[in-house]
């Protein structure tokens, strides 16, 4: 349902800093896929997600969602069917707005906004219900400003906000990387629960190979802007970290990545 068709993107074209971020990238995401995306630094993982979300226009190629060509669509227009969680836990919520205001904003994603009350009384019970599923006690703090919450709490809230209105595709860009191990696990659990319950099509970028193998039904490995490995189903279930390293060496003739990738 999401197709990336021969996407190429240069950054800083024509200057000393020119870099080929995406090199004829092809990817087809099927409905219900939970794809984990790995690769060494500069492989193009975050760039791919940003491309799908609309953060930049590709130099060549096309992006289609449900057969609709959205290559020329600006970011805010694509947001109607995309849910995003960023690596920076502070980026997904408004620090100066209250929790209920943040949720009200997310509730209207993809819908026209008018002059009716921003936070409606009838929505509050539902907000509380949703927040209760996080198990963080936020349902009693609807009027608190989001800036008072910890990074983990804000990331959890962002996850909720990204999926309150069901997205056609959920983009998770290393969304646990900036959290401490305990909170990171909580967020991963939350991710798992939400994706399973709502059967969301998901792309999750991670630097952690262990995570990549544990979660999802499909794994892709990027290197220098291309997809070099794509395993799914049974094959993925049986993969180990060593396998991955061997296969990378076989494909690229060099050892893969950083310590962070291996040990993280």
């Amino acid at each position, binding site marked *: 349902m999401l197709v990336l068709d021969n996407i190429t993107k240069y950054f800083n074209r024509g200057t000393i800093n020119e870099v080929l971020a995406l090199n004829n990238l092809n990817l087809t995401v099927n409905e219900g896929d939970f794809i984990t995306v790995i690769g060494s630094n500069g492989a193009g993982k975050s760039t791919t997600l940003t491309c799908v979300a609309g953060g930049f226009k590709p130099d060549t190629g096309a992006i289609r969602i449900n057969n609709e060509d959205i290559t020329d669509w600006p970011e805010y227009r694509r947001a109607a069917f995309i849910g995003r969680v960023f690596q920076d836990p502070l980026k997904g919520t408004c620090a100066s707005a209250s929790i209920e205001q943040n949720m009200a904003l997310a509730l209207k994603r993809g819908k026209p*906004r008018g002059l009716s009350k*921003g936070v409606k009384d009838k929505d509050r019970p539902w907000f509380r219900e949703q927040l209760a599923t996080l198990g963080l006690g936020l349902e009693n703090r609807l009027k608190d400003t989001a800036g008072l919450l910890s990074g983990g709490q804000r990331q959890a809230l962002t996850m909720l906000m990204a999926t309150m209105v069901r997205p056609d595709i959920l983009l998770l860009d290393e969304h646990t990387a900036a959290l401490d191990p305990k909170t990171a696990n909580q967020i991963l659990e939350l991710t798992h629960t939400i994706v399973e319950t709502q059967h969301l099509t998901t792309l999750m970028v991670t630097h952690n190979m262990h995570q990549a193998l544990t979660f999802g039904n499909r794994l892709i490995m990027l290197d220098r802007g291309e997809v070099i490995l794509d395993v799914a189903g049974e094959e993925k279930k049986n993969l180990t970290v060593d396998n991955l390293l061997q296969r990378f060496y076989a494909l690229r003739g060099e050892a893969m990545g950083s310590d962070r990738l291996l040990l993280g």
Partner: protein
Amino acid sequence: MATCPRSAIREQNMTWYAFYGALEQGFVYGLLVLGVYLTFRVLDFPDLTVDGSLPLGAAVSSVAITAGINPYLSLLMAMGAGFLAGMVTGILNTKFKILHLLASILTMIALYSINIRIMGKPNLTLLGTDTVLDSVSNLGLPPHMSAPLLFACFCAVAVVALVWFLHTELGLTLLATGDNAQMITAQGVNTHTVIIFGVGLSNALAALSGALVAQNQGAADVNMGVGTIVAGLASVIVGETLFGCRSVARAMIAAILGSVAYRLAIALALGLKLGSFSFTPSDLNLITAILVIAALVSPQLKSRFRK
């Protein structure tokens, strides 16, 4: 018998007239300060356009009144013109990727010439014409009290309207855009449209302020906008420090009261006599700077004393 440059007999620091005069200035410029609060604090968009849109509102309103149009209707026209001016700045910034500060300066500069064109000359008099102030002159209050009352009403209406608006769905997007543009974009909002609208709204308020100032002082003058943004910022900061900004409603009321406090402080300083030393109006900039510094430093001093 002597003709002295300053009356040696004047003992007061501020008369009731001067007090009401400061109230009057505080409220009439309070609308402008609301606009400055909207751009600087809510949208996080430094906007100098007001130096041009305040006289723009004055020009449009004066030309309309001189042509026989109802003074209240002229206020609406002034607001429309101010909105357009703000939109230009917003478009220059969002569509043409010009830095917000620079975009606003460009619009401000252009407005100087445009204002002269609108008025046909640099100074257009309103003496002897019908103004909105006539509508309160029959209330039985002396004119120096009815003017601040009228302007206070304008401010009250503006605050109520803005607070209501910022709590609507659209209004929330304004708050969000100024706080975290990436987040609100990911929630499907076109931040360009929001910025253009927000800067437009702010300058509509500045133009309304200008229209009222012109009707109050008896003329629209193309130079009346100089230093507006400085006074506006000083008022916002003084207001925040004195009255707090915990909620949107509170912050807006603080902005208006800050405007009043600013003008009162100036009136006080101008009337102050320490022996033979007294402030002159040319010290205005210095007084403004001291005020703002005091306002910004006092929270720090307070917390130090608490420790």
